[in-house]
């Protein structure tokens, strides 16, 4: 079955510290992978996506993610977290055989300490 697992429900980091949010997926074909961010009262915003090619992808707001096929992972990273990064982060998988629908993980809530 196709699924996305985000093992960490809640993470707290200090402002300026580095961040890594984990995402593992199960998908039968070549996956398209996404990270979205949801701030309170806001809609989901796409941070970055992977379709093919370079396995390290850069996104907005200084985020990056690395696709590791052997580990079925697509972890999100940021070298230095800002207080404004506090939000809910969702990893999602889709593919050419799914007609565009996305399967989402349960989300990781990020809190940032001053």
């Amino acid at each position: 079955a196709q699924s996305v697992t985000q093992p960490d429900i809640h993470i707290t980091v200090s402002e300026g510290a580095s961040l890594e949010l984990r995402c593992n997926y199960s998908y039968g074909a070549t996956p398209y992978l996404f990270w979205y961010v949801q701030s309170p009262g806001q809609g989901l915003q796409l941070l970055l996506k992977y379709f093919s090619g370079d396995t390290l992808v850069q996104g907005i707001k200084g985020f990056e993610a690395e696709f590791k096929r052997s580990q079925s992972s697509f972890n999100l990273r940021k070298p230095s977290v800002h207080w404004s990064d506090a939000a809910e982060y969702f990893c999602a998988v889709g593919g050419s055989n799914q007609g565009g629908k996305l399967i989402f993980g349960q989300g990781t809530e990020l809190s940032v300490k001053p």
Partner: protein
Amino acid sequence: GAGVSQSPSNKVTEKGKDVELRCDPISGHTALYWYRQRLGQGLEFLIYFQGNSAPDKSGLPSDRFSAERTGESVSTLTIQRTQQEDSAVYLCASSLRLAGGYEQYFGPGTRLTVT
């Protein structure tokens, strides 16, 4: 506004009543999706539309849920005889094409509370 809009933003209804949720996609986007987000959960796919093709209804949880879309414009999600477990945020998204490679742009959602 160039984004996806949804109305109402909040809806409180009594158990057993019918509700209609509306989505206005980005102009020119041929694909439209509905998702449900229960409290503390990720998004669950409900249905998508692509132009005049038959919609993919595989995610609708029961026959109380239905959705319509006229051409490439507005979509309405209808929930009949609402139940408390229907309480959730309902999100609409649109994309330029129906394919995995196209970014989905999400609306702000409709928060439905069934009392």
